């Protein structure tokens, strides 16, 4: 694998994570349990879509085949997406959404802090901007996980169920492969496995405050960030997200 191929793959992973999760979170718009949460979730979704524009924009540039961020977002099919499986999991109830958000945000912020030191200036620039947004995301999702986990017995039960359901999707965020090896050798991005210890420490602290029990299992689904095997949910999501560009190719505002 050449450096540029690996770099393109890496950028798709970054941009597809924020795109897919951003779209998922935007599905709450108008449906959240209270007005304040509705607006907060929409803000988070918009932040993630904004980051997508930067990551996929750079991906298109690195690929050098004239594809824009919009082309990459709207005209690829499920098997070309490189987001982790966690990001594409359905929203479930509000607690499940916030649990997914926290598990992702905590990894996202640790990664962006490292990417802000990337040897590639463009990557460092995007990360420096995104890390401010994501620092707020993780603060908010952490507080909500704690509030609901250590809340009523009903909210506690739901948060524990969400943690149990999503835990098998955590491991994929920290696996290394040929792409990440080349990125690490080039000084562009850290090996994902190098972030695990800090993530574990933060998540253990949060879950203990939330009175939630972390499942005693290291099992991890794989296949999202390689595109090898996405879960069924991604295709359904894309039919909604890409519908307009598929039905009316080239449509503009």
């Amino acid at each position, binding site marked *: 694998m050449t450096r540029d191929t690996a770099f393109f793959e890496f950028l798709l992973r970054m941009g597809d994570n924020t795109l897919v999760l951003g779209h998922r979170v935007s599905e709450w718009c108008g449906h959240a349990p*209270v*007005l304040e949460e509705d607006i*907060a979730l929409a803000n988070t979704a918009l932040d993630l879509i904004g980051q997508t524009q930067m990551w996929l924009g750079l991906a298109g540039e690195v690929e050098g085949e004239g594809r824009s961020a919009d082309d990459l977002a709207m005209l690829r099919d499920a098997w070309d997406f490189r987001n982790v499986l966690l990001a594409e999991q359905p929203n479930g109830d509000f607690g499940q959404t916030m649990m997914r958000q926290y598990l992702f945000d905590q990894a996202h912020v640790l990664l962006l802090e490292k990417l802000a030191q990337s040897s590639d200036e463009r990557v460092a620039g995007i990360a420096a901007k995104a890390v401010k947004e994501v620092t707020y995301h993780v603060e908010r999702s952490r*507080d909500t996980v704690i*509030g609901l986990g250590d809340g009523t017995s*009903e909210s506690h039960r739901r948060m*524990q169920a969400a943690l149990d359901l999503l835990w098998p999707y955590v491991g994929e965020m920290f696996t290394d492969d040929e792409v990440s090896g080349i990125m690490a050798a080039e000084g562009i991005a850290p090996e994902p496995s190098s972030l695990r210890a800090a993530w574990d420490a933060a998540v253990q602290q949060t879950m203990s405050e939330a*009175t939630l029990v972390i499942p005693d299992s290291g099992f991890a689904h794989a296949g999202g960030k390689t595109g090898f095997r996405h879960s069924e949910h991604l295709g359904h999501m894309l039919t909604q997200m890409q519908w307009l560009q598929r039905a009316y190719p080239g449509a503009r505002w």
Partner: protein
Amino acid sequence: MSSPNAAYPDTPDQAMKPKRHEWPLWEVFIRGQHGMSHRHVGSLHAPDQEMAIKNARDVYTRRNEGVSIWVVEARHIAASSPSDKGPLYEPSESKVYRHPTFFDIPEEVGAM
């Protein structure tokens, strides 16, 4: 060692409907980029003061409106009663001499 779930003995088997509690109301004050004082911008609901600040950030500073947020729970605000309007405010209507318009201001003072 007891598990963290021990504090919630009814967790596994009882799927009861929780009572719907309304979060308390908070009044939000924001200091704008160039303003000198915090101004009341509106209100919102939140479970505690930390979340009230976060919600205020998300609801009232989306368009770069502020550099500082105050929140206060609405029940802590003491307010005058509209029915006391007469005795409270009308007496000052007839006291024009309270406005500083009855003496000349020396030139050297400049604009006041």
